[in-house]
């Protein structure tokens, strides 16, 4: 992994009167990262992204992008940054082509017909280039949003929930596009999402925030594929299962039992062995359900926020 910091955030805080939207947030994004910025709705993700893009001013803390202070080198930084913030809105009375041309001109990007059409092709909108954006569905606007973010060939791409409102096929296409940009074009991607699974599929590093504050940060592998998994075994005789486990080394891994389920915290490769042990001792195992503690945690904070 490249160690060049593309985004460096330290002590970032945004307060609105009595509401603390972002609370002393620290994060680092390195060159080439697809960085998952995860949190439930209302966690402070969009507020953070707005501060990264100078739409709102932090109450305190600092942001460095490409090693430069965002406050002091705003224009220089934004020249190398493409973004979608929340839902992409365009000039509805202009065509897709014209919208890209207008936004590209302001960004100082290549607004030749060839480049604009290339971007529209990349997001699958080339056939609708001459349609006014007011006739576009949400999904099409989302794709156009990505096209405008890429038009000036930025090094850093900030995407705020880019798959929101898309159908499963559309979501997959966007994910594939992000992976393509990262792997083939060597772009650094800052991806906010409230879907853990989405981040897991695309990102290499991630942070989870809640109520404006960092909860966990690390590589996706570290956080989502830890050495130990919480595994639930669904068996036909819970009393017998509990008794035979007591005699084994897995007794130390036992967490809880409920109805016909036993829950253990096991090293990755041991769930199969325990399953085999149950079967060899005459038990019927109807399900083995691995769950990750972070997933549980994330579900819990998501439910709490809804």
């Amino acid at each position: 992994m490249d160690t060049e910091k593309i985004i460096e955030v330290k002590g970032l805080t945004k307060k609105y009167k009595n509401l603390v939207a972002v609370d002393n947030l620290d994060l680092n994004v390195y060159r080439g990262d697809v960085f998952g910025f995860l949190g439930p709705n209302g966690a402070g993700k969009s507020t953070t992204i707005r501060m990264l893009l100078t739409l709102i001013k932090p109450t305190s803390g600092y942001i460095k992008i490409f090693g430069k202070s965002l406050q002091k080198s705003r224009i220089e930084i934004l020249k190398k940054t493409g973004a979608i913030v929340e839902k992409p809105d365009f000039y509805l009375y202009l065509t897709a082509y014209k919208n890209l041309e207008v936004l590209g001109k302001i960004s100082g990007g290549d607004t030749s017909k060839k480049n604009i059409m290339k971007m529209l092709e990349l997001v699958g909108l080339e056939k609708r280039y001459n349609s006014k954006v007011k006739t576009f569905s949400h999904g099409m606007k989302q794709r156009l949003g990505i096209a405008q973010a890429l038009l000036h060939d930025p090094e850093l791409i900030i995407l705020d929930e880019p798959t929101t409102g898309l159908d499963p096929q559309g979501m997959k296409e966007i994910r594939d596009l992000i992976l393509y940009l990262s792997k083939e074009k060597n772009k650094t991607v800052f991806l906010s999402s409230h879907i853990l699974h989405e981040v897991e599929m695309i990102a290499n590093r991630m942070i989870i925030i809640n109520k404006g504050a960092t909860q966990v940060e690390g590589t996706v592998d570290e956080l989502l594929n830890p050495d130990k998994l919480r595994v639930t075994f669904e068996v036909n005789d819970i009393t017998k299962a509990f008794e035979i486990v007591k005699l084994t080394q897995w007794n130390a891994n036992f967490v809880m039992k409920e109805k016909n389920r036993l829950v253990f915290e096991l090293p990755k490769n041991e769930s199969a062995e325990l399953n085999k042990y149950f079967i060899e001792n005459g038990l019927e195992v109807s399900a083995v359900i691995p769950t990750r503690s972070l997933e549980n945690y994330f579900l819990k904070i998501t439910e709490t926020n809804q």
Partner: protein
Amino acid sequence: MILKLISIELGKIFRKLRTYIGFIAIGVLVPVVQISLYFTGEGYVDFATRNLKDSFFFVGNLLNGYLIAYLILQALFIHIPFLIVLVGSDLLAGEATSGTYRMLITRPVSRISISISKFFAGFIYTNILLLWLLLISLFVSIIIFGTGELIVLRDKVYIFASDDILWRFILAYGFAVLSMTTVLALSYLFSSMVENAIGPIVASMAVMIIFIIISALPIDILEPFRPYLFTNHMIKWREFFGDPVNYSEAINSGLILLLHIIGLFLITTYIFNRKDILS
């Protein structure tokens, strides 16, 4: 970069339907006034000259294009601001309403440049609208009614020779640019404060109406405030239709309007520059 931004902003203005409301309104209202005066204008001329007819004998075309243009300017001067406000109020608030603030402000240009370019685009629109008014009200009127002496009823009756009029209209329209740009700057200020263009339209017109009422009310206690109301200075284009022209009055009012424009623009830019974009 500023020129590029201005041309982009102009492109946005002239692609919106509301922009053409002003042109259509003038294109409809002025011919209505022209047609009305074509049939009833003699009454005005009779009224204007009723006290002079005993002593003077009037010859020539008194109901001419110049008189029509003057009457139109006088009649519409209070309505044109509404057409300016329609566009001025939308300059910033329109971006918030449509959500395009986010797209615009995440571009590598300073907010000050955005503010300057938007205001200049509005200023160009204002000029084009006034030019349209001048074209329709003066030149079309001259084509329909011909030329002649201009009779102006103010504190007294002025009669200007036909070769002594055109420059007065040019100066009056030059002054109108200042007046209408003040209105533009006011609506632009309100536009920077909210996220919907309706509020700035209502607020700008409310300010103007309140100021005009204060100016018109014959109440002594309001007297000290009157010199500070920009609406009082907006009507000083009439000074160019006096003899001799009271240049000091016109210049004084022009400078006051200019200060209003600069002041309002600077406040707007300050607000816009510090604004958190939450839309």
